[in-house]
């Protein structure tokens, strides 16, 4: 087997793999897992992350072409852990969101919802950052942390957890003792399954199509969410590339059969299909880079913890991408879990104790369930073409549009600024 970890490379002279020890082991080195690692190591805790992917591969363009919407509350979290300054020049501010109801090759409904940052007076509504820029920033940030270690490519193959501590065994043979194990492994989390934590889940009859669009005219920081009968169709503003080309990120939900056909099209024909649905506000589209398609599902774990195990991000909850909130929920998990862990450690108490993990779950469960419900409801409401439903939602848009208090609340919630917020989300240091 060619797999080799950073640690086993250093210690390969000894036959028996060394047993390591740290405060927290995180299984999964995706955006959410690494953000938690950055928050905890920044507070001085020792953190080891185990990730299946080769670090170099993860940072290359074809690995992940997605972009993430960073709500204002999430930006505070990234500022708090020291990441924002590393990605700020790659982030495009969303100054305005235009939500409209439409059909292919028809003008958008005259009733549309319009969110403007000037209305709220709290700065931009959010930012769009490409995942690979976030990933690069996290690797850069963590490379200077003395209490951080990455085991990649490697896998957690077994874990033993009891009142006295946890021990994880990696595929490479390395053993790590820790007070707490965090599963940040995504929706199919093996640690969640091994712990026997049940989930509620269902598939949407929809796929998400994702790629980067280039277009003739500048977007002026406007995000478009266009509700088509097959599902939401979002065009989100990206930074111009180095050659000064205007770019946006496309998130297009489509019925699985059609999504497959779209994926098979030549770039030029694909761009034309996008154009038919979007119109010519941004001029002509072209699609140069790779395209991704994945099935959409909803998932919510019945518990967020087990003995010395916490579920984080997609391992605990997967929601419909309709509102671009999935990563934001993951970051809010990070802010809450990091605060529970760090506050406990600063009292010299056991960070893996049930009471700590229960506090984390109580803090996050309601917010996660709310957004899973809201996004599910929105998707059901919008992914159809039944005339009375269309009329009702158009009137609903108009009502929200004309009720400033309600609209402000929706905006603040989408920005992650509602509720009992962790210090990081409030923009305070951990």
């Amino acid at each position, binding site marked *: 087997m060619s797999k080799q970890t950073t640690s086993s490379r250093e210690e390969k002279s000894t036959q028996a793999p060394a047993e390591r020890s740290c405060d927290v082991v995180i299984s999964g080195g995706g955006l959410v897992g690494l953000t938690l690692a950055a928050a905890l190591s920044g507070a001085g805790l020792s953190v080891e992350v185990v990730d299946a992917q080769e670090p170099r591969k993860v940072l290359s363009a074809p690995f992940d072409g997605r972009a993430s919407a960073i709500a204002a509350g999430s930006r505070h979290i990234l500022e708090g852990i020291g990441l924002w300054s590393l990605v700020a020049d790659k982030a495009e501010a969303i100054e305005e969101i235009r939500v409209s109801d439409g059909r292919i090759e028809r003008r958008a409904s005259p009733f549309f919802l319009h969110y403007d940052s000037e209305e709220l007076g709290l700065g931009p509504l959010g930012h769009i950052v490409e995942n690979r820029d976030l990933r690069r920033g996290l690797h850069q940030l963590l490379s200077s942390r003395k209490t951080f270690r990455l085991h990649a490519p490697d896998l957690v193959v077994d874990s033993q957890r009891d*009142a006295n501590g946890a021990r994880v065994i990696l595929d490479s043979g390395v053993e790590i003792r820790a007070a707490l194990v965090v599963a940040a492994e995504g929706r199919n989390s093996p640690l969640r399954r091994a712990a026997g934590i049940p989930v509620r889940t269902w598939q949407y009859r929809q796929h998400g199509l994702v790629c980067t669009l280039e277009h003739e005219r500048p977007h002026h920081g406007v995000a478009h969410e266009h509700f088509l009968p097959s599902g939401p169709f979002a065009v989100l503003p990206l930074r111009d590339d180095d050659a000064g080309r205007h770019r946006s990120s496309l998130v297009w939900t489509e019925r699985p059969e059609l999504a497959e056909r779209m994926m098979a099209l030549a770039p030029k024909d694909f761009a034309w299909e996008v154009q038919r649905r979007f119109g010519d506000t941004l001029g002509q589209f072209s699609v140069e880079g790779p395209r991704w398609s994945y099935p959409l599902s909803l998932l919510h774990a019945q518990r967020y913890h087990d003995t010395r195990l916490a579920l984080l991000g997609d391992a605990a909850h997967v929601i419909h991408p309709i509102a671009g909130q999935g990563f934001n929920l993951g970051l809010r998990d990070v802010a809450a879990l990091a605060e529970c862990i760090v506050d406990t450690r*600063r*009292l*010299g*108490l056991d960070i893996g104790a*049930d*009471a700590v993990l229960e506090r984390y779950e109580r803090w996050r469960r309601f917010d996660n369930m709310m957004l899973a419900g809201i996004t599910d409801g929105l998707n059901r409401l919008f992914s159809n073409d039944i005339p009375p439903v269309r009329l009702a939602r158009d009137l609903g848009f108009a009502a929200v549009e004309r009720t400033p208090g309600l609209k402000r609340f929706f905006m603040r919630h989408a920005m992650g600024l509602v509720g009992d917020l962790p210090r990081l989300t409030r923009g305070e240091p951990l």
Partner: protein
Amino acid sequence: MSRGNSSSTVDPAEIEKFSAMAEAWWDEQGDFAPLHRQNPMRLSYIRDKACAHFQRDPKELTPLKGLRVLDIGCGGGLLCEPLTRLGAQVTGIDASEKNVAVAGLHAEQGGLEIDYRCITAEDLAETGETFDIVLAMEIVEHVADVGAFLEASASLLDKDGAFFLSTLNRTTKSFLMAIVGAEYLLRWLPRGTHHWKRFLRPSEVTRQLRQSRIEVRDLAGMVYNPLNDSWRLSRRDLEVNYLLYGQKAD
């Protein structure tokens, strides 16, 4: 570092019994659940006042590094262990041989270096040893001679040290909460754990401490919230449980 002279004199057959007791002390849902619930609040009070006293940063992971701490009436070590993780060099004393053995065993399992001894405060004071921080938590209401106990505790405190004490107030509310509520209704504690008449009002403790040359610098109430089963500090409500921090008078 000696791990408590008593732990070495313990009969191996007793070890098993002690280990079961250690599990009971450290089971957060078990017999000592109320103490575990109180612990974060007590620790944050001690940490924050001690950090202010010794000019340390409470956000550091080991802010008490190098400080010698004495915990009088340490029980199973519920305060000794976290304070050790915060960097302190901790000595825990208890009049009960069993408690000392249990605490020593648990510390060993967790790989923590803690000096546990079966000795009273009065006897330890005879040796002339002093500490940077002296804790007398939930103990003064159990001693026979409060004056002698506080005098001994004060003499164990270094002249620049910080002194902490927590106990129960003698009020109608404390009778209802600590005796009727905790011992009879909720059964948190065995009946007869506390004698209400031995409870001390803050003014009485403050006066007694002043006679032993300790000036009380801060008083805070500990208030239980039954809705989320947690405790918080209160500036105003000292009616039932309260904590204080003091230092040697000049």
